């Protein structure tokens, strides 16, 4: 086989490989998307329905409107019994918790990161190690502590945890952004008579606002994706979307379409934000170790 032939062979191989990989990557998502538009009779058919034969938006309606109304409109009479409430509460909860948690994590993390970057404050490796621990093992003691304080199933409790768990990411990411700024900027500001606090707030922070935005979106994605924390410390009042998806799943019946509709709803923000900061994902996920 000469060089030209092997180049053509490689191109063809690459195309087949790429399309195979893309098919594997996207088919599960396609399947959930179509499932969310399927009518109840298509949820577990004897023969696979590759697309919705009787498309319906009933699954989405049931997420947002009270069940009596949806029954009146003529959707899903038998399964409606299993649904106690709409998903509106869990969606608002998810939004509020993720945003507040991100704000807290960003504030405490950025301050600490600046201190570690410029003043060589210690503790940065401790936070990295903290991130390596399984959240379930950390949460068991936290549940006991929260039960003592009465913070279980309380929005404040969840927000605090959403402000704590992503802190290692914030510290290491922001630190990598701070380290990229030359030290001379700080020194110049100090010589001009600015205090350390003024230097930090008025000079350095505006320079890293791009990094702050990337970090904020990254942390939002992390918090939005969380199942474990919410599952452990919430019960009814403060549930979030991933917990709610699990609640539609019971021994009485799997509400395939409704769970998929909520699932589609849950992945939209992460898909949009994730693809928006795709350039920085490597840096984020490796704690700034690989710049990408």
């Amino acid at each position, binding site marked *: 086989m000469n060089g030209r032939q092997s180049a053509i062979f490689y191109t063809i191989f690459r195309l087949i490989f790429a399309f195979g990989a893309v098919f594997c990557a996207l088919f599960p998502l396609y399947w959930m998307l179509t499932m969310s538009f399927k009518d109840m009779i298509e949820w577990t058919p004897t023969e696979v329905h590759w697309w919705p034969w009787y498309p319906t938006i009933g699954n989405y309606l049931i997420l947002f409107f009270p069940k009596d109304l949806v029954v009146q409109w003529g959707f899903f009479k038998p399964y409606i019994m299993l649904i106690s409430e709409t998903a509106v509460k869990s969606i608002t909860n998810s939004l509020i918790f993720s945003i507040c948690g991100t704000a807290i994590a960003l504030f405490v993390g950025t301050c600490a990161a600046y201190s570690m970057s410029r003043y060589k404050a210690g503790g940065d490796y401790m936070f990295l190690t903290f991130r390596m*621990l399984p959240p379930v*093992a950390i949460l068991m*003691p936290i549940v006991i502590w929260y039960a003592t304080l009465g913070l279980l199933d309380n929005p404040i409790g969840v927000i605090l945890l959403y402000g704590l768990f992503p802190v290692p990411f914030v510290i290491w990411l922001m630190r990598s952004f701070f380290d990229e700024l030359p030290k001379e900027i700080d020194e110049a500001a100090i010589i001009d008579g600015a205090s350390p606090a003024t230097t930090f707030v008025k000079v350095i922070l505006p320079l890293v606002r791009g990094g702050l935005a990337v970090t904020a979106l990254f942390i939002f994605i992390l918090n939005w994706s969380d199942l474990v924390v919410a599952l452990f410390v919430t019960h009814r009042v403060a549930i979030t979307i991933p917990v709610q998806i699990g609640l539609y799943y019971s021994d009485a019946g799997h509400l395939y379409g409704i*769970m998929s509709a909520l699932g589609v709803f849950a992945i939209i923000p992460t898909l949009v934000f994730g693809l928006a900061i795709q350039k920085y*994902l490597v840096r984020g*996920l490796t704690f700034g170790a690989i710049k990408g």
Partner: protein
Amino acid sequence: MVEKQLPRLTDWFRVPQKFKTLLIIPVQIIMNFTAMIPFALTWYVGMTDWTPQFTTNWWEATFIGPVSFLKVANDTLFLEAILRTLTISAVVVPVEFMLGFTMAYVFSGRFFGKKFLTLALVAPMMVIPAVGGWTFFLMFVESGPVNGILSMLTGSKVSIPWLTNPTYALLTIMLVDIWQWTPFIFLIMSAALLSVPQEPINAAYVLGATKWYTFRKVTLPMLKRPMIIALILRAIESLKIFDYPYMITGGGPGHATMTISMQLYESGFKYLKYGSTTTESLVILIALIIVGWYAVKPLRG
């Protein structure tokens, strides 16, 4: 007479040494309140036999002392869960690495549609893990499309009990993890391959080295650090697996898909054995703090 200057409140913003401390205080507060106090509490609760059915408050539970740590060694379910999680890790991490690296290498040149294909490939990583688990539940149900595709390929009706057979259920859990996190390796290795300088590779070609030999002896050594970081992060993350078994099998059939996290959740929240669950959490935490401390070394730059 030299007047000694009194410390002022604004010194916290003016004196570098004080400002350094001030910046650390918020993170210390949240860390101590939500993580360190509970961790200290664990040491006591872990040595009791607390179950909330009998005594509502942990301080009323019977103190049994460090014997509780010995009890962990007799908890076969817990030990099995550890072994199972390690097995999942040992299978999933190399497979993800090989797939992701191959993808990154195949995608390393310039070709038509690269940007779009990359976006599509990275998509699974953006899906939240709980939903990722749910999509695989939908795919692998007996009436689902995986059996459908297999039926189409073989021409006869295939109905593999993916979720009700212990071995297949474990395989399903591994497959979700591979589906979701291969893109992670792909992204890291793509970035790493981009940053490899071309001159040594061209020099090797000029000197008559074959493609495979150049890759092995020139490219690979330059990729060592990203490779190690990717492997370590994936290995540690795969020990935390919780969302997939929770969404797909609930730990079943039997205990076939009980990972460490699932096991802790189940014994804590289903059987309410708070005392022993806390002890087990503590054992896992201590073990992983030690492992983690050394594992994060390559990340230190």
